[in-house]
């Protein structure tokens, strides 16, 4: 059911009001009214309205890709396409050498050597504060500074919530579908071996990326933009299918509207087939 602000969703008293709805606080008025334009999502007795476009609202455990905006005392401010900037505390990152120790003044001064303004990082949400700001952490080898690759920005509502957000696609790239709408595409990441365990996630591969890899990354990026233009949910399967369907065209042609619609139609057909078989 599609609603716009001010629409009455229901007058039944058994329903509770979730995100995207409100009630007039007048005595005897039990209407649940929509406050955004979007799709009504009833979960048992809770009615929420999911807006078509929104800033990212973080949940604990989400994987995000963010950009360092500021280096402050003992923490970094990270821009994550949300209402307020997120915070990455010095105590929430792995130190070089994998040591577990108390952060000293020397660590504070050396912050900029780890992460400085403009760097892209992948992190996980540790905590959501009362005002909606997020605390991040990179306490795993999977997270850390992102090196060579391409970042695509889409609306957070298009990223499907899954168990795994970091995928190695069969076309030869690895992607991180950040819940906040930032998608990171890079050449295949070699899985962390024991010898690299002490890395801390701040060094990245500086080997030059081959021309083939660059073309694949470019194609994946354009395929994602095609899907986003038509509001198709993004997850590993849909991106993979879109990539496959796009091989008929040159990477740069994917940016034109008619090519994009065609690829999206074929991708959606493929997804339907998959669901039909499942």
């Amino acid at each position, binding site marked *: 059911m*599609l609603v*716009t*602000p*001010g*629409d009455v969703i229901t007058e039944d008293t058994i329903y509770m009001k979730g995100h*995207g709805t*409100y009630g*007039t606080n007048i005595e005897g008025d039990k209407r649940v*009214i929509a*406050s*955004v*334009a*979007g*799709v009504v999502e009833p979960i048992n007795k809770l009615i929420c309205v999911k*807006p*078509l*476009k*929104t*800033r990212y609202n973080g949940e604990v455990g989400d994987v995000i890709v963010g950009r360092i905006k500021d280096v402050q005392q003992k923490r970094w401010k990270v*821009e994550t396409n949300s*209402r*307020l*900037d997120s915070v990455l505390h010095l105590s929430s990152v792995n130190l070089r050498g994998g040591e577990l120790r108390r952060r000293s003044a020397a660590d504070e001064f050396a912050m900029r050597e780890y992460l400085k303004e403009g760097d892209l990082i992948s992190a996980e949400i540790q905590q959501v504060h009362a*005002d*909606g*700001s997020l605390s991040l952490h990179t306490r795993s080898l999977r997270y850390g500074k992102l090196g060579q690759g391409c970042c695509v920005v889409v609306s957070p*509502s298009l990223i*499907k919530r899954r168990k795994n957000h970091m995928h190695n696609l069969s076309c030869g790239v690895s992607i991180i579908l950040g819940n906040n709408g930032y998608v990171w595409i890079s050449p295949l990441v070699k899985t962390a071996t024991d010898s690299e365990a002490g890395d801390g996630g701040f060094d990245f591969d500086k080997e030059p990326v081959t021309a083939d890899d660059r073309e694949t990354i470019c194609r994946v990026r354009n395929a994602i933009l095609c899907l986003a233009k*038509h*509001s*198709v*949910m993004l*997850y590993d399967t*849909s991106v993979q299918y879109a990539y496959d369907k796009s091989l008929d065209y040159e990477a740069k042609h994917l940016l034109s509207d008619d090519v994009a619609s065609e690829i*999206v139609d074929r991708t*959606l057909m493929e*997804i*339907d087939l998959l669901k039909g078989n499942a």
Partner: protein
Amino acid sequence: MSLELLSDEGYRMDGRKANELRRVRCNLGVFQQADGSAYIEQGNTKILAAVYGPHEPSQNFRSQVPHDNCLINCEYSQAAFSGVERKNRPRGDRKGQEMAAHIKQTFEASIQTTLYPRSQIDICLQVLQSDGSDYAVSVNAATLALIDAGITMKDYIIACSASLAKGVSLVDINHVEESVGCAELSAAVLPKLGRIVYTELNGKLHEDEMGQILEAVEAGCQDVFHVLEQHVREHVKDTAANFAVS
């Protein structure tokens, strides 16, 4: 030759009847860069609106942001080519700031600011062509842009203007009707909740005429609301079509 706002047969200068609106056309989501954007044309008045936010407050506003509400910042700008004569208007000019302040005040009545503590929402309006009812069309453009950005609002905010000629209320006045010098009433309403959130009167009006012209404005707002709501529903339908698929 005197300027006749309303002919004896009941037609205005542009051929409309007294309670007729100009043609309304709008588009949502015209920019990819902004969180929300909209373009609206009411007759020849053409206005572009872009909404950024809610986001971290910028340097200049950091001190003004309340801890339990969001700060609404409005910027209103009229292009040099928008009027009858080319006139270069600098960003911070008096009229622009006044209009921005009024629009900010209007939207504080609908945006649920308590849901966005410590954040800032920017509403940027650009008038591309000005043919009367600038405030009203700006408010309508901003409403559409806010809906596009997914910002929670109690209801649409729809505005309209009206004037009085020969005892008849003229709805949605254009530039020529404005410059004649009659009283002009602009009002912004919450159409579904049926509440008026802003009124502005330019010129002199007799107390007895106020009721009549206010009714005409409210009716005009409801008419504009019907048109805009149709557009928004279609836009939502088209965009959400693929949402459910996967």
